[in-house]
Each structure stands twice: as C-alpha cells, then as structure tokens.
C-alpha cells in the first residue's frame, strides 16, 4: 500500500495494491489507523486501481475506516 499525505490540504491518500482479503486486511487496518491518527486528515481517499482481488473483508475494512472518519466528521472518498 502506498501512503501519501498532503499537508496543506490535509488530504490522506491510500493506494491499495494486489489482493485484499481477511489475511491482508489485518496489516492494512493497522497501518491505515496509524496514519489517520497521526495526521488527522480532513479527507481520506482510497484508490483501488491496482487491486486485483477483494472479498467481503475489504468491504469490512472500508466500512470500518468510514465509520472512524464519519465519527470525526471527516470525509472519505473512494476512487
């Protein structure tokens, strides 16, 4: 996963890669939450261009981040 943060706009980008399943979401979730807490961005953007496989664990991962983001009244968008 590539992580990019734009300081002046407070934008956090996650570019996801390869396969997202129950196994890989454990690590992704930890990394994403760390970056979100560290930067407190205004907006979180997920890019799925390079993802070759995703199952319901990926949906769970997204919904989980969406909840956190919503709770703090941030916005998140999916590319």
């Amino acid at each position, binding site marked *: 996963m590539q992580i990019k943060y734009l300081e002046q706009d407070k934008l956090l980008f996650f570019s996801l890669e390869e*396969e997202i*399943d*129950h*196994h890989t979401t454990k690590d992704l979730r930890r990394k994403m939450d760390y970056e979100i807490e560290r930067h407190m961005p205004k907006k979180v953007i997920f890019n799925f261009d390079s993802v070759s*496989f995703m*199952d*319901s664990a990926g*949906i*769970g991962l997204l919904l*989980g981040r969406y909840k956190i983001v919503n709770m703090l009244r941030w916005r998140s968008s999916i590319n």
Partner: protein
Amino acid sequence: MNKRYKNKMQLEILSKSNNEAFARITVAAFAAQLDPTIEELSDIKTAVSEAVTNSIIHGYENKEGIIRINAYIYDNVLRIEIADQGKGIEDIEIAKQPLYTTKPELERSGMGFTIMDNFMDNLKVESVVGMGTKVTMEKKIADKNTNEEKNQEENFYV
C-alpha cells in the same frame, strides 16, 4: 448431482489466514480447464475466499483446525465443497441474511453468504452445532467455443 464427475481435486489446509489466497488460487487453477472468463474466475475466487474465511474466523474461531476443499467438474459445471469441523452454525437462515454477522468487532461486513449466493449458481449450507459446517457451491461455466462457432456460422450466412 449423482452423475459421475469428469475431474476431481482435493485440498486440505490448516485454518491459517495466509492459506486463504492459496485456497482460492488453487481452486481457480483447477477451474481453468473449463475455460472460464476472467469474470467467472474472480467470482469463483471470491466465493472460495468467503467460505474459507468463514471457516477460519467462525468455524474454528482462529484456533487450529483443518479445512477440506473438494472440487469436481461435471460437464460444464464446477462444484466446490468446503468443509470444516468447527463449531457449526446455529441458525443457517439467519446467518445467510445480508449484513448479519456475529463478529462485528472484527469489522466483518456480514456479506459472506450473500456473496457466495450471488456469485455462484447454487449454494447449499449444511451444519451441525459442535460438529462443523459444509458449504457446497456450484457454478455453470458457459461454453464459449460453441457460442463462437455459432456466431461465426451466423456471420457466414449473413
């Protein structure tokens, strides 16, 4: 389906999450001989991934156990059986409902059975509490060659 199968595979894996990718790729490789489209292949991979993940998280609750995967080919139908000897499902009808999950704290979306049901043509779930669960799925793979030939013939006559 009691008809004799054309081909068969059997796979036994430990209930470790890093085996999920291995299981779905193996079944997809076995299914390749039916000449599926990319879309059909990813449907199969996703359905297998859901069933195996269910066995690991819910069946064995992350404890060590064995998951058995059998796949059969009958003419143009792929049949996949995924069985565990985990804790079983109390009420299958409730478990099958979209968004229903017993483990929301793990950020499960509750879409596992819904995805299996939608991506495959047939889904059967058998379970005995304390004994385990067996998921049987079937998918028909359309024969592209005959369609192509037909189209070519049609073009020829037009």
